[in-house]
C-alpha cells in the first residue's frame, strides 16, 4: 500500500510538470500586462516599461520559467505582482472560506444525495425514483448563479433567515459560521447532489442485480441491511470515483458561488488574479488546485482499498 502511494506520488510529478508548464506558457502568451494594472490609466508607455523591467517581466520566457520553478523547489511561491503580498500569505488568507464552503457543501451533499440515490435505486422505476431523478437532473440544469440568486431572494431577502452574503470564520462560533455558510454551501451542493445522487442510483442499480444481494435476501435480512450494508458498500467505488472527478466540478462551482455570496475564498482570488494577470498568484493557485485534485483522487483511490478488500495495491 505504502509503495503504491509512493508510486502514485511519483507518477503525479510528470502530471504536475505538465500542468506547470502548460499554465506558465498559457499565461505568458496571454495578452495582458500586470504593469498596466499597477500603473493605472494615466501611465505612459515608458512608465509601463519601467515597471515591467522592475517586475522581471522583460526577461525571456525560459529565464522566467527557470527562475520560477527554481523558487518553487525551495518552497517560494513568490509574491503578488500587484499587492506585493507573498502568494502563500494570500492563499493562507483565502483557504479557510473555500475549505469551509467545500467541506460543508460536501457534507450536505453526502447527507442528501446518497439516501436519495439509494431510495431511487431501491424503488427503481417508481414514482419516487422519477421524483428523485427529476430533482437531481433539475439541479444539474440550472446555472449555479441562478440557484444562488434564488436562494438569496427567498431565504435571505424574503424570509430573512440567513444573511445575504459574506463569510464568518468558524473561530467566531459555530452558529454564526453555519448561518453564513449555509446558503452558499447549499447552492454549491445542488450540482454535486445531482451528480452523486445519479451516480449512487446507477451504482446501486448495478449492485442490486448482483448475486450476493439475492443471497442476502435469501438469508432473510431486512431491506435496510440489504441496502446499506450489502449494496451500498459495494456501490462505493464508483460513487467515490465520481466524488473525485466531481471535485473538478466543485472547483468551478466554488468560483461562481464565492462571487454570488461574496465569500472571500480561493475561487475569487483566482479569477481576480487572472483578470489582473497576477502571474505568480495564478500559477501558484492553479498548481495548488491541480495538486489538490491529484491528491484528492489519490486519496479516493486509496480509499477504494478500505471500501473493497479485493482492491490491494
Amino acid at each position, binding site marked *: 500500500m505504502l509503495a503504491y502511494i509512493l508510486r502514485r506520488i511519483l507518477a503525479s510529478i510528470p502530471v504536475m510538470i505538465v500542468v506547470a508548464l502548460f499554465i506558465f506558457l498559457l499565461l505568458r502568451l496571454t495578452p495582458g500586462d500586470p504593469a498596466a494594472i499597477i500603473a493605472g490609466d494615466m501611465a505612459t508607455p515608458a512608465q509601463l516599461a519601467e515597471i515591467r523591467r522592475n517586475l522581471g517581466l522583460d526577461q525571456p520566457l525560459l529565464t522566467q520559467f527557470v527562475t520560477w520553478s527554481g523558487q518553487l523547489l525551495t518552497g517560494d511561491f513568490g509574491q503578488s505582482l500587484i499587492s506585493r503580498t507573498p502568494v502563500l500569505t494570500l492563499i493562507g488568507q483565502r483557504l479557510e472560506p473555500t475549505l469551509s464552503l467545500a467541506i460543508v457543501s460536501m457534507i450536505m451533499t453526502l447527507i442528501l444525495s446518497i439516501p436519495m440515490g439509494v431510495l431511487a435505486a431501491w424503488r427503481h422505476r417508481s414514482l419516487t425514483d422519477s421524483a428523485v431523478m427529476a430533482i437531481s437532473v*433539475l439541479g*444539474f440544469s440550472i446555472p449555479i448563479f441562478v440557484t444562488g440568486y434564488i436562494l438569496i431572494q427567498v431565504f435571505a431577502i424574503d424570509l430573512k433567515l440567513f444573511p445575504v452574503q459574506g463569510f464568518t470564520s468558524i473561530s467566531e462560533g459555530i452558529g454564526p459560521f453555519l448561518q453564513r455558510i449555509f446558503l452558499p454551501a447549499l447552492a454549491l451542493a445542488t450540482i454535486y447532489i445531482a451528480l452523486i445522487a445519479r451516480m449512487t442510483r446507477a451504482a446501486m442499480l448495478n449492485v442490486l442485480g448482483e448475486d450476493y444481494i439475492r443471497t442476502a435476501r435469501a438469508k432473510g435480512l431486512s431491506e435496510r441491511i440489504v441496502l446499506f450494508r450489502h449494496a451500498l458498500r459495494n456501490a462505493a467505488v464508483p460513487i467515490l470515483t465520481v466524488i473525485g472527478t466531481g471535485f473538478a466540478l466543485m472547483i468551478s462551482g466554488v468560483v461562481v458561488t464565492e462571487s454570488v455570496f461574496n465569500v472571500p475564498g480561493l475561487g475569487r482570488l483566482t479569477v481576480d488574479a487572472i483578470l489582473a494577470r497576477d502571474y505568480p498568484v495564478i500559477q501558484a493557485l492553479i498548481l495548488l488546485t491541480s495538486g489538490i485534485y491529484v491528491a484528492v483522487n489519490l486519496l479516493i483511490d486509496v480509499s477504494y482499498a478500505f471500501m473493497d478488500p479485493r482492491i490491494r495495491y
Partner: protein
Amino acid sequence: MAEHPSTAATGPGAKPVVRRNFLPRIGVRGLGLAAWIAAFALALVVLMALFAPLLSPYDPIAMNPMERLADWSLAHPFGTDAYGRDVFSRTLYGARTSLIVGLGAALVAVLIGLPLGLLSGFFRTLDAILMRIMDGLMAIPAILLAIAIVALVGSSLWTVLVAITIPEIPRVVRLVRSVVLSAREEPYVEAAITVGSSLPKIMWKHLAPNTVAPLIVQATYVCASAILTEAILSFLGAGIGTETPSWGNIMSEGRIYFQLKPSLIFWPGLFLSITILAINILGDTARDALDPKLGKRRQD
C-alpha cells in the same frame, strides 16, 4: 486474477450472457414519457434555433437605448434589455449560440477524443505519454482554463467553444480508452486477430463501434455541461461578446436586474434549463437503454 477465463461460464446451465452491444436500438416503445417530452422540447429548441431569423420580430443586436428595460408588451413579448434590445429575439438567436456551443463541444470532444482514446487503448508507450498529458489537463480546473483561454484569444463564439471543449477532451479520451481496454479482451477481437486482420481494421471495425453507446451518453453530458459552462463564463465576464447573443450572456447581462426585471434572466434561464434538462433526460434514457454497466466502469 487467479481464475482463468475458461471457467467463467461452463456448462449449459450457465445463464446466457446478455450483451447489449448493438448500436443504439432504442425502440420507440422503450422511451418513457419523460424521454418523449424531452425529445419534443429539444426538437422545439432546435427548430427555434434554425428558424430564429424567421421567428424573431427584431434584429437581436439592434438597440434602442430610449426603450431600455421595457416590460412585457405585444411588441416585446419578453421585454427589452438594458440596451433596449428585444429579449425575445435575443433568446431565439441565443438558442443558436447555445446549441452550437453544446453540440459543437460534444462533437469536437468526440472527434478528437475518439482517435486519441483508441490509440491510447492500444499502444502502451503512447498511452503512458498521452495519459500524463490528459491527467495534467484534467487536473487543471476547467473553468479557470477556459477563462485563461478566452483571455488569450479573445472572446468570440469560437474561442469560447474551444475553451469549453479542451477540458472535456481528457474525459472522452479516458472513456474511449477504458472501453477499448475492456473490449480488446473480448474474444471476437482475438478472433479478428487470428483471422489476420490489421490493427487499424480491428480498431475501426471491432473496437470503435463499442465506444458508440458510451460516447453518445458522454456526448449528451458534454453538451449539457458546455451550455452551462458558457453561461458561467459569461457570468464571470469571459463569455461570448454581446453581439452574439447566447442564453448565457443574456442572463449574465440581465443578472443585475434580477429583482427588478426577472424576465431578463427568467426567459433565457427557462430555455437553458429546459434544454439541459431535455439533453440530460435523453442522456439518461440512452444510458439506461444502451449500457447498464456504464456507471460501474471507473473513469480511469
